């Protein structure tokens, strides 16, 4: 029998982050969103709480928690501010996790303590202008010359890659040809700064304005041969593994977004009066919010289940895709309904629901589009 009750410690962590989100994050969310500024003071606060090291062992400066604890945190942050949540998510599962999973002991010792402390941020450069889920399209190259990799190419949409705290970008690059004639793709650690590496000006995005996202360019960037992360030729396969886990984390963040829309709508529907009574007393509004709550709940159940299977060492690929699919759609659907509940105010940027409306679209796209999730689920069904 599946038990979805939280332990005392999990409940306490959830509550602590809920308070942090309400007291520290929420008051500055609108301003950072409007000004498109990176919330350094919030990141500092998360670092002080040890959130960047949450799922890593203490020997590397981590907190000794697990991936589910990270998910609980992401849900609470996502309720209030998706930009802040994705900054943490990317820092942990894309910045530090690849080093932890595939790094040599030396690489772990070098990078994990600073990444876990949150004083340094890592980024992962996979996506390219012409290649996202299609690895074969990778055009960035890394040639081994005199004991060093010479990297050339471009990456696109890379989170946390251009902040003052960014110290590491892990890139996937073509390092040769396989015996069957396909591209051999490997991962390489690039310290920041390194000559030839440039984070180009930040993107002008629809949402996630306070999250740091840049196109990256590599022009004859040279790093030592030892900076190869994991086995040569396993770069993409390794990354797919990271991506499976990452989907659960994004599902948790999305669940938070869906729940944040419910929170705001309940509050507003009780306060706002029209025709002499709170609008929440109209079934047109109440039912809409009830359905939003149902979506958020279903999304939460889905990610709890996927995380439980992953932590139990069971296959979880399908469950992770389902959670990502359901939660991403719940966030977008709830954001649309929440702005409707808010009427004209829902179209004003200072209202949290309007931010969720702009922010949530990416949840149906990032870390595998809805269509990619459907493809993966169908594949698990033997189709």
């Amino acid at each position, binding site marked *: 029998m599946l038990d979805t009750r939280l332990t005392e410690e999990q409940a*306490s962590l959830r509550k602590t982050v809920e308070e942090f989100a309400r007291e520290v994050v929420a008051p500055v969310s609108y301003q950072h969103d409007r000004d498109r500024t990176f919330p350094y003071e919030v990141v500092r606060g998360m670092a*002080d*709480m040890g959130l960047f090291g949450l799922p890593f062992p203490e020997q590397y400066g981590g907190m000794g928690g697990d991936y589910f604890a990270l998910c609980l945190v992401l849900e609470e942050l996502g309720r209030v501010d998706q930009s802040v949540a994705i900054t943490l998510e990317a820092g942990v599962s894309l910045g530090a996790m690849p080093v932890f999973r595939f790094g040599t002991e030396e690489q772990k010792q070098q990078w994990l303590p600073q990444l876990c402390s949150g004083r340094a941020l890592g980024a992962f450069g996979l996506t390219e202008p012409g290649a996202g889920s299609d690895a074969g399209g990778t055009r960035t190259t890394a040639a081994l010359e005199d004991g060093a990799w010479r990297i050339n190419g471009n990456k696109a949409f890379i989170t946390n890659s251009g902040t003052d705290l960014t110290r590491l970008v892990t890139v996937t690059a073509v390092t040769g040809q396989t015996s069957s004639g396909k591209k051999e793709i490997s991962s390489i650690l690039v310290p920041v700064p390194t000559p030839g590496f440039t984070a180009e000006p930040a993107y002008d995005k629809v949402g996630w304005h306070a999250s740091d996202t840049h196109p990256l360019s590599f022009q004859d960037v040279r790093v030592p041969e030892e900076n190869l992360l994991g086995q040569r030729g396993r770069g993409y396969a390794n990354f797919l593994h990271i991506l499976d886990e990452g989907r659960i984390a994004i599902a948790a963040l999305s669940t938070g977004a869906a729940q944040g829309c419910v929170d705001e709508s309940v509050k507003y529907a009780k306060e706002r009066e029209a025709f002499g009574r709170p609008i929440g007393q109209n079934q047109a509004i109440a039912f809409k919010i009830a359905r939003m709550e149902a979506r958020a709940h279903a999304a939460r159940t889905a990610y709890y289940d996927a995380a439980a299977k992953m932590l139990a060492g069971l296959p979880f690929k399908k469950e992770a895709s389902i959670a990502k699919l359901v939660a991403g759609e719940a966030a977008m659907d709830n954001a649309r309904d929440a702005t409707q509940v808010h009427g004209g105010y829902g179209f004003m940027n200072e209202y949290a629901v309007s931010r969720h409306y702009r922010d949530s679209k990416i949840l149906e796209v990032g870390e595998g589009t809805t269509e990619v999730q459907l493809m993966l689920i169908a594949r698990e069904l033997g189709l």
Partner: protein
Amino acid sequence: MNIVVLVKQVPDTWAERKLDATDKTLDRASVDVVMNEIDEYAVEEALRIQADQGGEVTIVSMAPDRGVETIRKALSMGADKAVHLSDPALHGSDAVQTSYALAKVLGTLEYDLVIAGSEATDSRMAIMTPLLAERLGQPQLSGARKVTVDGGTVRIERQTDNGYDVVEASTPAIVSVVEKINEPRYPSFKGIMAAKKKPLTTLTLADAGIEADRVGLASAPSQVVEFSNKPPRQAGQIVKDEGDGGVKVAEYLASQKLV
């Protein structure tokens, strides 16, 4: 430097606070509860003094069973151990009785400093530290916005309307703090995990040597006789500005004897 921090569990500041209709005591059951906000500053200050001077930080709280949640929060922030005075017979105790019970608990502990928040968000009496100082015969330094400890002397900056006073006392002493004093930390995950393993002693009245007839609602020196809800706000008076808005506003204020 051993420090005791007094911590109170109160209804969530954001929740609607109510009195129980049957016995006119605070309704703690139907609302979310949290640590009294200023007490977080008291815990933080104790932890900072400890980081500088060593010693142990002990949390003391008088609360129903549910108070454990609040005590654990203080432990997860970094306090070393806790004493929880919990007994159904304490229900309805007023400030005077509470100070008697807490003084008894403090009597079982060795400390150099007691730190508490200057007031609680539920009762708003701001009287617990003076009551305790009186009962224990120890000096009290109230309203601290800064605390420094040097050997057996504790010195505070006491917040005043126009600035601050510097006041000092010899230890053991009782200090109350205001929000200006610091910025309380959020517990880390490691702190949360560690909190459950820290020593937590639960005391009943008998354990603490508290006489049952000196606490509780029946013998409380002060009791709530009657209460009513705040009257709903009246609609305001709207002055239309036809070039003389300022004059009309001034006339209104004068008629209310506000200017």
